[in-house]
């Protein structure tokens, strides 16, 4: 404690900026960690809240994926002896047409029976409804909304609301305001209840329900009721507690969650390097102080403890601050991801508040402190090993010792060999990841030696550019590799992360582009909603023939798709008119023959699957897929594997005839329209709109609009890549400012001499700027190389564990070219402060500086 007060505190006060930069490294790491995990948790909680609130006292839910099932199933469920209450539900999100409100979750329920499962706590309502729900039923335009929604939009009982339905925009009358603390929190308060039969009509359900909510009879356990229902209904139906939907949602989000976790771990590692750099420099600068302490009798243990305690203090302060920053950022991140999920996944959830987990915050703080201590361990150990005699002499202590250099190289070589062996045996998951870690470790171990090598290599170039300023800048790097290498390592790691994500994004974009060129080639698409991922609205089958009769239309292909749970994994079943599609879509299968695949599927003798389905479900050609349907178990062999991005978890393609036969459903989600050669596409499109708009609410999207929608979705998904760039830039700035503040202290006399012999202030600034830019260049070179390796492993990881998507290795050259000015710009910005500091202050003091 005494040493802390006598030595650490004065040092901290003298080098406050450096300490702030050290702490900033921890803040960055912990902040990203807390923000990402809190956002994730908040999204899950929002979804669970919506599910749970809407479920009320429901104990089990009967469903058949997103396809729904015929009304007749209700009677079968109600006839099961263990069932106490069984009520049907139709659920969908629709646009409100109210500015700023976005979508609203429609719950279609049977008012006569539903109130035994859900309590709406009507605050204000038509008096008649409270007493007799049949009054509500008698008015098919009736709607109940939450008090929150009403207050937000200045609505009251008997107000009118317009909703976008399959029949076009329809006006509804609010007949009740729900005050239930439960219901009102679902979907952020944007919830409306209506009669189920009205809902079936406006959502195009025909005579189908989405699910049946069940409560077991008094005295019957949930497990017994579940078993009885499964036995009565067969494998075509899922019978699960409401919470099971949360698990499915989690599976859908899994790849995104994992990516966020990796991102947060990277941020912590990068923070670790910044901390290591700071403490290593501090130990170097305080050598003589340490030497004096040792000469006066301080033990090695006391010296080491001193530095570790400093790291704990810095870690604690930085972690608490980082956690605060993370929580602040989490809501913004959660809302952004939430909107992407709603758009891309058609998943109804709305994040309006944060779910802060004290355990997670504590974990983040502990991780930050641990990172700080781990990062400071080696410098603290080195401090304890300082020889008092040598420490009190002047000398080159910034140079890496020969022994240290050799040790690192041997360790790097060992790691590289281990990674190479693992590469050969990469079918094994543990070996793949071991190889990944070993390879990255080899790169980091080599960073100091490579930094020195590149600094020496760049010296002649800098000398030629600016003989005085450039030479001194290069010499500063060459003479003090210890000072520079940790910053370069942090920058290298950060850029490797950027290349990994950027390369993944680039490859994915390329693959998506290819997929769109091959598979999404109709002239326009007819859809029931702007959100092409929405499957809750459908058209009747007749729409195909209606569109075909429009002048100029050559061919119409209708598609019905919906998500089902297959072996605990949510996958997309896509019913297509195979023969028609085969005539217009030509793509190279990953496995199987295109002709054979199309023929067998059209004949109903097989199905083809996406590559991600095959990887995630561990299936291959000729494996038999057993799909639960309302008519029983549909068994079809896999006759082809293709690259498809309709659903990232996996998709299966069956013929529409098979779908109609087994699901007893004639509806369609999307109509793909091809225009006759020579016809004006826009003119035909207008004719389709005119023909259909009086009968249906529809959107006719051009091929370009659909592509733009998909690309916009991708941009949102990969928005995280830009966050990585921000992290990389912050790392560059933090690390370089840290290094330069030390550099100008170390070079104080040298810079003073330069001024004394006639160097102008601008020339002094330039030597500092050049040093920063050189660090940026070295970081870019090494980061690009490590990034190229990281990209290989990233794509492998994605294929194995994050969605099963197979992507070609395409190095993102254009992206990296963009990073060059960004990183060099950041380096220059980082150098501005130190550059000014270098020219300020007393020249006399500088010349006398030791």
């Amino acid at each position: 404690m005494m040493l802390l007060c006598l030595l650490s505190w004065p040092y901290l006060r003298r080098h406050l900026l450096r300490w702030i930069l050290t702490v900033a490294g921890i803040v960055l790491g912990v902040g990203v960690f807390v923000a990402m995990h809190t956002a994730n948790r908040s999204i899950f909680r929002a979804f669970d809240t919506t599910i749970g609130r809407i479920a009320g006292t429901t104990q089990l839910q009967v469903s058949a994926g997103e396809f729904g099932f015929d009304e007749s199933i209700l009677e079968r469920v109600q006839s099961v002896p263990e069932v106490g209450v069984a009520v049907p539900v139709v659920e969908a999100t629709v646009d409100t047409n109210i500015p700023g409100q976005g979508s609203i979750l429609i719950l279609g329920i049977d008012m006569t029976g539903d109130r035994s499962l859900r309590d709406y706590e009507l605050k204000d309502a038509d008096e008649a409804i409270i007493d007799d729900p049949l009054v509500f039923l008698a008015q098919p335009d009736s709607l109940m909304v939450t008090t929150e929604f009403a207050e937000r939009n200045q609505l009251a009982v008997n107000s009118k609301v317009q909703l976008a339905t399959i029949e076009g925009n329809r006006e509804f009358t609010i007949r009740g305001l729900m005050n239930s603390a439960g219901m009102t929190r679902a979907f952020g308060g944007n919830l409306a209840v209506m009669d189920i039969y009205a809902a079936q009509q406006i959502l195009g359900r025909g005579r189908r329900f989405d699910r049946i909510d069940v409560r077991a009879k008094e005295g019957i356990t949930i497990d017994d009721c579940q078993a009885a229902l499964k036995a009565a209904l067969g494998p075509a139906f899922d019978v699960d507690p409401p919470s099971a939907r949360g698990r499915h949602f989690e599976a859908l989000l899994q790849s995104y969650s994992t990516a966020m976790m990796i991102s947060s771990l990277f941020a912590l590692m990068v923070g670790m390097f910044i901390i290591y750099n700071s403490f290593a420099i501090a130990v170097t600068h305080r050598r003589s102080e340490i030497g004096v302490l040792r000469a006066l009798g301080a033990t090695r243990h006391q010296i080491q403890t001193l530095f570790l305690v400093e790291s704990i203090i810095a870690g604690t302060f930085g972690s608490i601050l980082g956690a605060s920053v993370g929580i602040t950022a989490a809501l913004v991140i959660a809302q952004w991801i939430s909107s992407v999920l709603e758009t891309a996944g058609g998943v109804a959830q709305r994040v309006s508040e944060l779910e802060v987990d004290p355990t997670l915050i504590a974990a983040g703080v502990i991780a930050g402190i641990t990172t700080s201590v781990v990062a400071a361990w080696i410098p603290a150990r080195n401090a304890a090993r300082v020889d008092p005699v040598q420490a009190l002499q002047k000398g080159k202590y910034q140079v890496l010792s020969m022994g240290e250099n050799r040790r690192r190289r041997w360790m790097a070589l060992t790691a590289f060999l281990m990674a190479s062996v693992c590469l050969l045996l990469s079918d094994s998951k543990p070996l793949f990841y071991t190889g990944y870690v070993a390879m990255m470790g080899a790169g980091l171990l080599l960073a100091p030696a490579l930094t020195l090598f590149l600094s020496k290599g760049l010296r002649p170039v800098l000398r030629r550019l600016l003989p005085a300023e450039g030479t001194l800048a290069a010499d500063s790097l060459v003479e003090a590799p210890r000072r520079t290498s940790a910053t370069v390592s942090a920058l290298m790691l950060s850029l490797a992360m950027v290349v990994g994500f950027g390369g993944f994004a680039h490859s994915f974009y390329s693959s998506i582009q290819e997929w769109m060129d091959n598979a999404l080639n109709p002239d326009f698409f007819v859809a029931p909603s702007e959100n092409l991922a929405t499957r809750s609205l459908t058209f009747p089958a007749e729409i195909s023939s209606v569109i075909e009769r429009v002048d100029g239309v050559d061919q119409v292909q209708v598609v019905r798709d919906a998500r089902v749970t297959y072996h605990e994994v949510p996958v997309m079943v896509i019913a297509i008119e195979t023969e028609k599609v085969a005539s217009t879509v030509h793509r190279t299968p990953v496995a199987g023959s295109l002709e054979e695949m199309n023929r067998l599927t059209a004949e109903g003798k097989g199905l083809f699957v996406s590559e991600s389905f095959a990887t995630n479900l561990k299936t291959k050609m000729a494996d038999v897929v057993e799909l639960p349907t309302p008519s029983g178990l549909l068994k079809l062999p896999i006759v082809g594997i293709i690259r498809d991005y309709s659903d990232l978890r996996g998709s299966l393609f069956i013929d529409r005839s098979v779908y109609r036969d087994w699901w007893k459903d004639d509806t369609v989600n999307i109509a793909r329209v091809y225009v006759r050669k020579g016809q004006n596409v826009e003119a035909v499109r207008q004719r389709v709109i005119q023909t259909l708009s009086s009968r249906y609410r529809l959107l006719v999207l051009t091929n370009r609009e659909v592509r733009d929608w998909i690309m916009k979705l991708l941009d949102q998904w990969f928005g995280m890549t830009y966050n990585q760039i921000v992290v990389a830039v912050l790392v560059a700035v933090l690390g370089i400012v840290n290094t330069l503040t030390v550099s100008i202290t170390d070079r104080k006399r040298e810079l003073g001499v330069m001024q004394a012999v006639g160097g102008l202030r601008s020339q002094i600034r330039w030597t500092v700027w050049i040093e920063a830019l050189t660090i940026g260049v070295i970081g870019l070179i090494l980061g690009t190389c490590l990034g190229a390796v990281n990209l290989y492993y990233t794509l492998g990881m994605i294929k194995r564990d994050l969605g099963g998507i197979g992507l070609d290795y395409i190095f993102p050259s254009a992206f990296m070219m963009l990073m060059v000015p960004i990183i060099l710009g950041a380096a220059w910005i980082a150098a501005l402060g130190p550059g000014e500091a270098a020219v300020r202050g007393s020249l006399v003091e500088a010349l006398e500086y030791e």
Partner: protein
Amino acid sequence: MVSLTHVSKIFDGKRKATALEDIDLDIDKGHMVSIVGPSGSGKSTLLNLIGGLDRPTSGDIQIDGENLSELSDDGLTRVRRDKIGFIFQFFNLLPTLNCLENVALPLHLRKWPRRKIEDRAGELLNLVQLGHRLEHLPDELSGGERQRVAIARALSVYPPILLADEPTGNLDTKTGQEILKLIDDLHAQLGSTILIVTHDSEVAERCSRTVVLRDGRIVEDRRQ
């Protein structure tokens, strides 16, 4: 050549310290002047002010008719660059540059052409009898050799004024004598105005004029 009028320098710190008080001094062109006095008398401060490394608290300093107090920091630097050569007690050579590069540094800062720089640097090192050590780094040289390199650097543009702050303070007696002889020879050869700060009376005896400082004031001004 050098003219100081009512120059004072007070250092602001926890306590104010008066380093120089009301100094009036005129030094003619081509003279070799020693500035002597005990430790803390203000000798180095006086030299730093004349050399434009620091600014006086009050008073004026003129170098070749140019008033330093009216100049900006870059203006001071230009005066230092073009008119003044500095020789420091601890040499202040840059350790990563060899002899030729150290001598060439001021010329690079002036953006001279490369060939001209090499020629001038080589010429200067020959002048101080170190033409055979061009590629050597400072830590490969003896103290005397380092000071010779520092002198060569100070002469890079043959400045009219040379300021030497205890040039032999860090050298043994014999080497110190050699350096003083070199400075003498250069003075005779080049006709520069030379100011030497020293506490060594032997050094002072070599100069045509000795200015004695005590407690920040000129107490004696002897001409030999």
